[in-house]
């Protein structure tokens, strides 16, 4: 399957909340409208100065959360969704700490908690269906398709209506690209999007440090063993010299007694 993506066209969103309703129904989350991402709301519509901004997991191309998870509970599927296996999770919350978009949520009031976030309806996609939120959108503010086609569509919209859009597709290159893309009529910074974010995939930062481990272990091991060998050798030599000296002394006294 080709890589999929969602395009959220902020200019078309009327803030009806149908996406959240559909999402909650699909994922069996408790009903009730929510304004902030939570462990019971995978997608929300945040109102910023009269503009409706739908938020959900960005499903990064190189997901930071998946790279930091010590037990591999988060995986990037080949067709886009970043999915979570709760049975593996140990609850270290490094994914939350590391996510550049502050997406993962936690069940703080549960004694056996899970991390919670949008899974891009990976099962529906596998069945050839769009995610529940996209299907529910009445205005076409969210559309779904192959990522390259979705990007083309986004470029077309910006190009054809330059006065209606900011000339930027948010998510095209952020942290190496995401599977959720945004178009807006006002600068992204003013809508609470992080605009000074790195364009390089973040996992590279730790991978670089981790890749040095073998050489540190090897060089360190050789160095420590080498130093020990030298100090130990010195000790042995010293001991031997002492023993020789003792033997000589003994012989001397022996001869003295003889005389």
């Amino acid at each position, binding site marked *: 399957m080709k890589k999929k993506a969602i395009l959220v066209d902020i200019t078309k969103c009327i803030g009806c909340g149908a996406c959240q309703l559909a999402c909650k129904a699909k994922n069996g989350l408790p009903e009730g409208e929510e304004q902030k991402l939570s462990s019971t709301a995978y997608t929300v519509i945040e109102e910023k100065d009269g503009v409706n901004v739908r938020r959900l997991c960005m499903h990064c191309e190189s997901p930071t959360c998946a790279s930091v998870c*010590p037990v*591999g509970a988060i995986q990037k599927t080949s067709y886009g969704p970043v999915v979570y296996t709760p049975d593996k999770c140990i609850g270290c919350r*490094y994914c939350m700490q590391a996510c550049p978009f502050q997406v993962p949520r936690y069940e703080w009031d549960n004694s056996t908690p899970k991390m919670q976030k949008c899974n891009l309806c990976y099962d529906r996609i596998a069945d050839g269906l769009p995610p529940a939120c996209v299907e529910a959108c009445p205005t076409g503010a969210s559309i779904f398709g192959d990522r390259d086609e979705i990007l083309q569509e986004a470029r077309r919209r910006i190009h054809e209506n330059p006065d209606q859009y900011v000339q930027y597709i948010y998510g095209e290159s952020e942290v190496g690209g995401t599977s959720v893309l945004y178009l807006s009529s006002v600068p992204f910074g003013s809508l609470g999007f992080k605009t000074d974010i790195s364009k390089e995939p973040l996992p590279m930062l730790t991978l670089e440090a981790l890749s040095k481990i073998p050489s540190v272990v090897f060089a360190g091991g050789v160095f420590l063993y080498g130093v020990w060998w030298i100090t130990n050798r010195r000790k042995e030599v010293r001991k031997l010299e002492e023993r020789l000296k003792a033997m000589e002394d003994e012989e001397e006294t022996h001869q003295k007694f003889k005389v």
Partner: protein
Amino acid sequence: MEMKTLVKKLTFWRSVFALLLGFGIYTTYLRYTHGLGAVTNLSDEFPWGLWIGFDILCGVGLAAGGFTIAATVYIFDIKRFRPILRPTILTAFLGYLLVIVALMFDLGRPDRIWHAIIMWNPHSVMFEVAWCVMLYTTVLALEFSPVVFEKLGWEKPLRWIKAVAIPLVIVGVLLSTLHQSSLGSLYLIVPDKLYGLWYSPLLPVFFFVSAIGVGCAMTIFESFMSFRAFGKRLETDLLRDLGRVIVVVLLAYLALKVGDLLYRGKLSLLGQAKTETYLYYLEMGMGVLLPIVLLAVPKLRKSYNVLFFSALLVILGFILNRLNVSITGMAVSSGVEYFPSWMEISITMLIVAVGFGVFALAVKKLVIFVETEAPEGSHLSSLQIDEASLVREPAPRYPGSVAIEQ
């Protein structure tokens, strides 16, 4: 009669400990029945708090004396430092055990702490951290075990440990190097979240170098505390030598930190009137500059009090650094304010108190501090220094036993 002894035993510190224990038990109950949200001020925006910042980051760092002194004595064969081997290895071992205790509180699913053994993600720094904790705790247990075997009079295991002593120490040093630095690497992944004064590609190096400094400082600190509590102290000459080592380590650290700010072009951040700036100055001034000055002057270094005070400064500066990286430096980008709840603080304090308590108990029941100031003209001194090593050699307590050759 019995009442009287009971009252007598209720000293000030014991009541403090009892109080902490009470709070701790209450918090523990809530934590495991109602979840992390019931006891901590953590949130989706601020998922790592005091328990990670202090209990884990500082706990591991303060245990760093264990590997530095072990390497000094066994690998570099600087025998002078033998008397401080045991206290530092004990500190390290306790430190790591308490880090695991803290993890059992902080992890959302402590019952799954073993998952990292079979579910691998070598791309994760946390995975590396998990393995370092597991392996190094094992190494420390083995490094400390002779002290216990000796007490029990178990000859055979003593000899086994002896046989693998050097590889054990080498593995321990390597694991520590990886672990100390990897705690810094944890934060490499948050370049846009951690404040510019602290985020650096050199974080793992900073964590490693500062850990060596604080490891030495902890040794001095313990020695003085033990003297106050039990009248047991290490040779002051040794502690002064450690003070000199601290100066060298801190100078290297300072050079790296300043060079890094220059190289990254973040020097201008030092002129901004912000909480972060003040905390940075406090961290570097209190924990690095002042101890360098105090310890570099031989006249000052001669004084017990200055030595102790400098060590304390290094430790406090180190703690502040770890809290700055994990809490203060992350505050602005998180968009929320985090301050630990009293329950988080109570667990942290209880863990520290347990650490002090177990250390004191070990000093009472086992041979941790070895008297080295032997009477003049006596040949005992060298014998006792030997006793302080990982394995007692030629064991005076077991005459006729097989002499373990060094």
